[in-house]
């Protein structure tokens, strides 16, 4: 049998974490000690999302927005990239963003225009903006509000950035007694550990992608939208155990499983075999979608993966 039993000392996001919040800010050991899965957030949550790569940010944000839209909530996304580009990223992840934007259920905005006033940050201004949004959402008849805030603006030299902790404290007060939740997004590679530790403690939830393995050449983590796993770097038989664990977890997803290998540059036969075995073990009509570069796709074709009914091989261009 392919799957390894889960190691008792392994822990992943979604499980209780006894360690202090401050430890979460430190860059990433093998499994991330975030206490909540992005898919488990609920009303009133003020969650701190930390991410390591843009792919991960868009993936987790997509899941947050997808679940919000599915629940009939109003969704606001204040993004650091151009709202248009951000919307494209969501479409690529299978979210019907265009109709949600057109119907007004979803709004994508640039942070500068709303959180900041004249290129300066004032906690009071930002909080009153947020309060207005909560009221406007209720007035529009939505049962609740989800807000995703990309905090990357705070990395730029902006006046008033020292009020960031006050803002994070204030958000909790705004959310009390409402049907709103806020997801603050921090780049853990770019924010300094002290700032991260300070702001993380001001949230009631901590969220990150479940990471099964990470070292200098390979990263294996969960993907949330579309659900599956993501492999980046070079993978060979050394990573047999974490790959087996990641695949076993992916098997518990309902429906199709996406294995995102767009940023994978090398895969050996033993890893290909494990992935193909997963596909073989899937009951009808579920599929494993292999997203990979032309070079990796050719190896899977030689392996015979394209002849397996439950495999769908999708070639993605390197960006």
């Amino acid at each position, binding site marked *: 049998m392919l799957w390894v039993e889960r190691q008792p000392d392994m822990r992943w996001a979604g499980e209780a974490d006894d360690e202090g919040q401050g430890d979460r800010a430190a860059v990433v050991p093998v499994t991330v000690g975030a206490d909540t899965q992005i898919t488990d957030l609920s009303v009133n949550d003020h969650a701190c999302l930390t991410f390591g790569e843009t792919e991960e940010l868009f993936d987790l944000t997509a899941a947050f927005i997808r679940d919000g839209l599915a629940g009939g909530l109003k969704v606001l996304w204040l993004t650091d990239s151009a709202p248009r580009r951000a919307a494209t990223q969501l479409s690529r992840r299978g979210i019907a963003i265009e109709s949600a934007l057109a119907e007004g259920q979803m709004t994508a905005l640039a942070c500068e225009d709303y959180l900041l006033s004249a290129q300066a940050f004032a906690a009071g201004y930002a909080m009153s903006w947020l309060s207005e949004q909560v009221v406007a959402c209720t007035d529009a008849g939505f049962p609740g509000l989800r807000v995703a805030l990309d905090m990357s603006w705070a990395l730029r030299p902006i006046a008033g950035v020292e009020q960031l902790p006050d803002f994070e404290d204030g958000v909790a007060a705004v959310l009390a007694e409402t049907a709103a939740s806020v997801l603050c997004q921090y780049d853990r590679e770019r924010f300094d550990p002290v700032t991260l530790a300070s702001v993380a403690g001001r949230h009631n939830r901590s969220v990150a992608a479940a990471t099964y393995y990470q070292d200098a*050449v390979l990263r294996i983590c969960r993907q949330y939208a579309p659900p599956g796993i993501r492999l980046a770097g*070079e993978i*060979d*038989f*050394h990573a047999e155990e974490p790959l087996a664990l990641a695949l076993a977890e992916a098997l518990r997803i309902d429906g199709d499983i996406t294995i995102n290998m767009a940023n994978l540059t*090398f895969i*050996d*036969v*033993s890893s290909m*075999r494990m992935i193909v075995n997963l596909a073989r073990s899937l009951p009808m009509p579920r599929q494993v979608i292999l997203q990979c570069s*032309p*070079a990796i*796709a*050719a*190896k899977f*074709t*030689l*392996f015979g993966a*394209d*002849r397996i009914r439950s495999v769908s091989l999708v070639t993605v261009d390197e960006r």
Partner: protein
Amino acid sequence: MQPILEQALDVDSLYRLRASVAAHAVQAGLSQCRADDLVIAAHELAANVVRHGSGRGRLRLWKHEQMLHCQVTDEGIAETADGTEESGRNTDAGSVPGKPTWRIEPGHGLWLVRQLADRTSLHPGTSGSTAKISFALGHPGSAETFTLAERSSSGSMILAATGNLDLNLAGELTDAVERLLAGDPEARLVIDLAGLTFWDAFGLAGLLRVQARVAASAGASLILADMPDQLALHLKETGLADRFTVAGSPDDAAGGLPAGGEGSCSS
């Protein structure tokens, strides 16, 4: 022969080994795609040594007569041949002392090595096991040229492929077949391979994809004509030959093709 790369290998050095092989292969004149093929082939041989052999070996890379040769040696076997096994070496690898490596078992990766290399020779032996894989080096200038010409003959469409069957040509081939089947779902197709100079993993994968595409279209058929001997031998050795219908000249193939041809029945 003076090696251009000679490196010891064990379970902890495979990442470094891949990086060295990739760099030296490109330096020696292999295309990027073929260098990728060599890297995975060399990795699988090395992985065979560390997982199924003694655990330690050596890789050499050298150029000879327009070929790039890569030899992987399982060093442990040489030492254990006379029964004087060094303790501690074999415990992790799980090999049997004195038993030759390169046992070609399903899933060991050696079948992929055979598919990718132009030539493969495996020498299991009690006096040291070696595997040698060879990759043809392109002639300068010829590497990038390829063409795909279309003509019809006796109710069949003949696609003549010349040059490198690589990512570009494989992509053109897939597109052309897609287009022809869109026009006529029962198209009778012949791919004339006489002008092929090289192929790589993309090319082989492209042929397999095209075959699968044709097989999925009821009534359509595909014949590979005038296949270069080396490619025919290669497909035979790697067990891929029975996935295709082959013929001599393209016009024979076009004329002799039964209606709703048998080439479509492989699935």
